[in-house]
């Protein structure tokens, strides 16, 4: 079965981002970029499905600027077979991304689409679900376990009170949660080999998708900073402060 994995290039999760002085956004110039951590988990899960003999081909796709090729090469080094870059310089909203992915799904006809549950930049947690609506596929969001059984996939999901398992008809969409797996590192020989794997570039226009959006960002501000706290010397002093100063216990 063919597996399609969607990945996103985002600011590295360890970077403390700064808001631009003109409040137009966050400053991403000269900041380290990486593959979104949830997308790494999605790639890893696809590679494991291939190692188990469940998946026959892994196609990795991203939508973004030309530089997002780096993240596709990373996915190829981790075990994906080929890559598709939908090149768009604009920052796109989830619905536009879902529509572009729908066009790729129509073309590639995968049995399973795996993607991260959210990107750590926009923190939206929308694209997988939106792709579900557009394709009509069932969705297994926030997955911590994925088992393909015949023409179904059983997905254990992380929900607020614990875990829930659903059975989805294939083709289906799975979005990954942190505990699904521990992503591997790419080895140097695999990084070299990945340079020779096929990478196709298309444009939203070629896919016939309009990326217009109904939501625009008016401004981006830094969050209110907390006033500096104090260090207490003992537990007794801490309790005294909580009782009499902060009045919270």
């Amino acid at each position, binding site marked *: 079965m063919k597996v399609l994995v969607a990945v996103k290039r985002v600011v590295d999760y360890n970077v403390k981002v700064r808001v631009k002085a003109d409040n137009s956004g966050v400053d991403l110039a000269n900041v380290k970029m990486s593959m979104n951590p949830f997308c790494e988990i999605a790639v890893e899960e696809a590679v494991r499905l291939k190692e188990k003999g469940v998946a026959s081909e892994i196609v990795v796709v991203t939508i973004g600027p030309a530089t997002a090729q780096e993240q596709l090469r990373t996915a190829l080094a981790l075990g994906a077979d080929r890559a598709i870059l939908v090149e768009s310089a604009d920052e796109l909203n989830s619905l536009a991304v879902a529509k572009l992915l729908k066009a790729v799904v129509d073309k590639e006809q995968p049995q399973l689409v795996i993607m991260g549950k959210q990107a750590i930049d926009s923190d939206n947690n929308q694209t997988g679900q939106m792709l579900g609506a557009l394709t009509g596929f069932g969705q297994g969001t926030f997955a911590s376990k994925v088992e393909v059984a015949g023409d179904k996939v059983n997905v254990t999901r992380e929900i607020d009170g614990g875990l829930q398992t659903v*059975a989805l008809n294939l083709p289906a969409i799975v979005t990954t949660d942190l505990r699904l797996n521990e992503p591997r590192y790419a080895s140097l020989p695999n990084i070299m080999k990945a340079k020779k794997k096929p990478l196709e570039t298309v444009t939203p226009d070629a896919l016939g998708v309009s990326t217009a959006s109904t939501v625009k960002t008016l401004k981006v501000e830094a969050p209110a900073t907390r006033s500096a706290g104090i260090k207490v010397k003992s537990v007794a002093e801490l309790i005294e402060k909580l009782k009499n100063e902060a009045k919270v216990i």
Partner: protein
Amino acid sequence: MTILVIAEHTNAALAAATLNTVGAAAKIGGDIHVLVAGSACGAAAEAAAKVAGVAKVLVADNAAYEHQLPENVAPLVAELGQGYSHILAAATSNGKNILPRVAAALDVDQISEIIAVESADTFKRPIYAGNAIATVQSSASVKVITVRATGFDPVAAEGGSAAVEAVSGAADAGKSAFVGEELAKSDRPELTAAKIVVSGGRGMQNGDNFKHLYALADKLGAAVGASRAAVDAGFVPNDMQVGQTGKIVAPQLYIAVGISGAIQHLAGMKDSKVIVAINKDEEAPIFQVADYGLVADLFEAVPELEKLV
């Protein structure tokens, strides 16, 4: 302007997050309708009808909606939602699962996890793990929005007397089935609604040591949370995780024990009113956001704290 709020419920009872979501709807202004989609969900619908400020409760009672599978519920919401100016749901795992599917079915963008309402079409939401706050404006015909419960005060659960109306919609889409669930059992207050939260991190060293936190929490009437490190190490189940990818809490008092304070953890708790950090590393980043910091060995400080409160 009429707003449709999707109720978060367990069929038998209404979840607290629904009250916060109605609170957000009240800030937008207009008539508020609540949709209760479930199976044998009469009790939840009755509870919704009593919520202050609700004008009408729509009840979709169908076996297909029992576990709120998005493949079944989203088409119902999209169909009912067409006449509304806004569709709101709490940003719980359930709301996040269903609402983007509704938005795409209506061909509109969705706005996730708003923390403030500026006007009927302009909202504030955190991005980059809460390190920036974006103000966004929507020109969509139907504004589809999830609401961060900690950003809004809940409305009163009693005092309303809304009309209850049965609605029907698409039934089982036949794409998914509920297999089972494992819910963590706890007598303590729910993490996202607790007034006091005591959280442990990697510094707890093992799951057994969480008993110190449970003892303290029971004395304070607090909920117990954890950092990702503690969850990944298997000390506690994942539904206790506080952070960007776990639960977002904003209690009156947050006590972080043996937690260094990574960006991703702070995203889940830095709106707490008072933050206390107990850590033996005085360089730990958690002290930069803590109102009161205690540099001490938690295995001495926590039992002493428990004894003295």
